[in-house]
C-alpha cells in the first residue's frame, strides 16, 4: 500500500491531515493497523481535552495487543469519530479514512517537525528488516 503524500506522519505511526479550516485530523497508519491486526476496541479522548505533543490520548486495541495513540501535535480536541467505537474494524479496512480525532493546533510550527510520506516510508522500511 502506498503512503499518502498529502499527509504527515509521526514516529509512533499516527497520520495527520491539515484541513482547510486550520484544524488537523489524526488517525493511525496502515502500517500500524497491519502490525496490530484485527481491531476490537477503541478508546477516544474527550472533546475539549487539551493535549501536549506526544501525550497518550487514545487506545487502539486489537485482538493481539493494546496500542497507545500519541497526539502528534499539541492542541485541543474539537471532534472525535464516535461511530468508530462501534466499528473498530474500519481502521483495518482503510486506516487513512478511519480518523480518530480532530485537533485545533496550539503551535503550528510542530507540524513542520512531522515526517512527510518519503521519510515515513523509510521508517517503515527500516522497521521491517
Amino acid at each position, binding site marked *: 500500500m502506498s503512503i499518502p503524500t498529502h499527509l504527515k506522519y509521526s514516529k509512533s505511526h499516527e497520520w495527520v491531515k491539515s484541513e482547510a479550516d486550520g484544524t488537523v485530523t489524526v488517525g493511525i497508519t496502515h502500517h500500524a493497523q497491519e502490525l496490530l*491486526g*484485527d481491531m*476490537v476496541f477503541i478508546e477516544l479522548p474527550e472533546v475539549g481535552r487539551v493535549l501536549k505533543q506526544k501525550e497518550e490520548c487514545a487506545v487502539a486495541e486489537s*485482538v493481539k495487543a*493494546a496500542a497507545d495513540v500519541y497526539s502528534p501535535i499539541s492542541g485541543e480536541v474539537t471532534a472525535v469519530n464516535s461511530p468508530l467505537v462501534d466499528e473498530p*474494524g474500519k481502521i483495518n479496512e482503510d486506516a487513512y479514512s478511519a480518523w480518530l480525532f480532530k485537533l485545533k493546533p496550539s503551535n503550528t510550527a510542530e507540524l513542520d517537525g512531522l515526517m512527510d510520506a518519503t521519510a515515513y516510508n523509510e521508517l517503515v522500511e527500516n522497521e521491517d528488516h
Partner: protein
Amino acid sequence: MLKMTPLNQAHRDMNAKMVDFGGWDMPLHYGSQLDEHHKVRQDAGMFDVSHMLPVDIKGDNVRDFLRRLVANNVDKLTLPGKALYSCMLTPQAGIIDDLIIYFLSETWFRIVVNAGTADKDVAWMLKKRDEWAPNLEITPRRDLAMIAVQGPNARAKVWQVIPNSQSATEELKQFQSAVIGQYFIARTGYTGEDGFEIILPAADAPAFWKSLYAAGVAPAGLGARDTLRLEAGMNLYGQDMDETKNPLESGLSWTVDLKSERDFIGKQILSDTVVTHQLVGLVLVDRGVLRSHQLVVGQKDGVEYSGEITSGGFSPTMNQSIALARIPAQITIGDEVDVIVRDKKLRAKVVKYPFVRNGKVLV
C-alpha cells in the same frame, strides 16, 4: 533457524502472516483472524497443528505403563479408537502437560502432546519407561503432519476430499478415532465445534491441505485458534497452567481420577491437597479487553481478595471481552469482580465456562 511444518510453503502461498511461535514458523492469520474465527463457528476452517507431536507407545503392556504415568484413567478406554484427555503430573502434582491419549490396541497407544513441551514430555516418558517397562517402544512421530478441520461442516468437507474415509468415520462419536490407510482421523478438536483432527504422513500433507482448500475449507491461523479455544473454555498449557499448578486449581478436576486403586505420579500430593484456588470464566461488563496477567480484585464476605487472569482476550462470537482467571476458591459464579486494566478498574462477571459451544453462546 525456526522449525517448519510440512505445510510451511502452503501457508506462504496462501498469504499467511507468519510468526515465531515458540520456535516454529507458523501462520498467525491469512488476512483476518476475526473472519477465520467466524468461518470455523459457521462453516469449516482448517488449522496446521503439525507442530504438536504424536508419540506412539507400543509393546506388551502399554496400559499398565499409562495407568501410572497420567492422572486420568486409561481403563476408561475400552473401545479401540477411543480417546482420553488427561494431564501428566510431576511427583508434586504439578502439570507437565495436558494431552490426549488414543487407544488403538492393547499393544499400541498414541499420545498427542503440545509443541512447546514435546521434548520435555518425551524425555519424561522415556525416563519412566526405562524405570518401569524397559521393553516398551516410545516413538516420537515427527514423520507425521496433523491438520484440524473444524466447524459444523468440517466432517462433510473431509468426506468430500477423502470419500473412502466416510464409512469408517461417519459413526465416530466425539473423542473416538479410526485409522483408514495412511489417515488417522479423530473426532476431537480445540475449538468447541464439531470436526476432525487428522494425522497423516508429512509428505501427503500439502496436497491434502490444498484439496481441503479447494473444497471450501478456509485456512485458519493461530490467532483464530486462540480466540476459538478461549470461547470454548479450553486450557492453554503455559498460560492457564504450568508445572507450578495442579489440575484442581486449573479447572481440570474432571480429568483426574482419584477414585480407582491405581497409583499414578502425583496421586499422593493431589489426594492430600487443600484446594485454595479455582479457574473461572470472566465476562467483561464494561468496554475494553481483558488480558493475561491482569489483576482481579474484589471483596467476599467483607474480606478483600485478589487473583489473576490466565488467558484474556476478545470473543468475536459474543463481541465482548472474556477471560479465564485463577481466583480464590470461595468466589462463586455470578459474583462480580474488578479487573485492573491499565490503571483503571473494570467490572467483570464470574461465569461458568465454556462461553461458546457449537456456535451457541452459553453465558
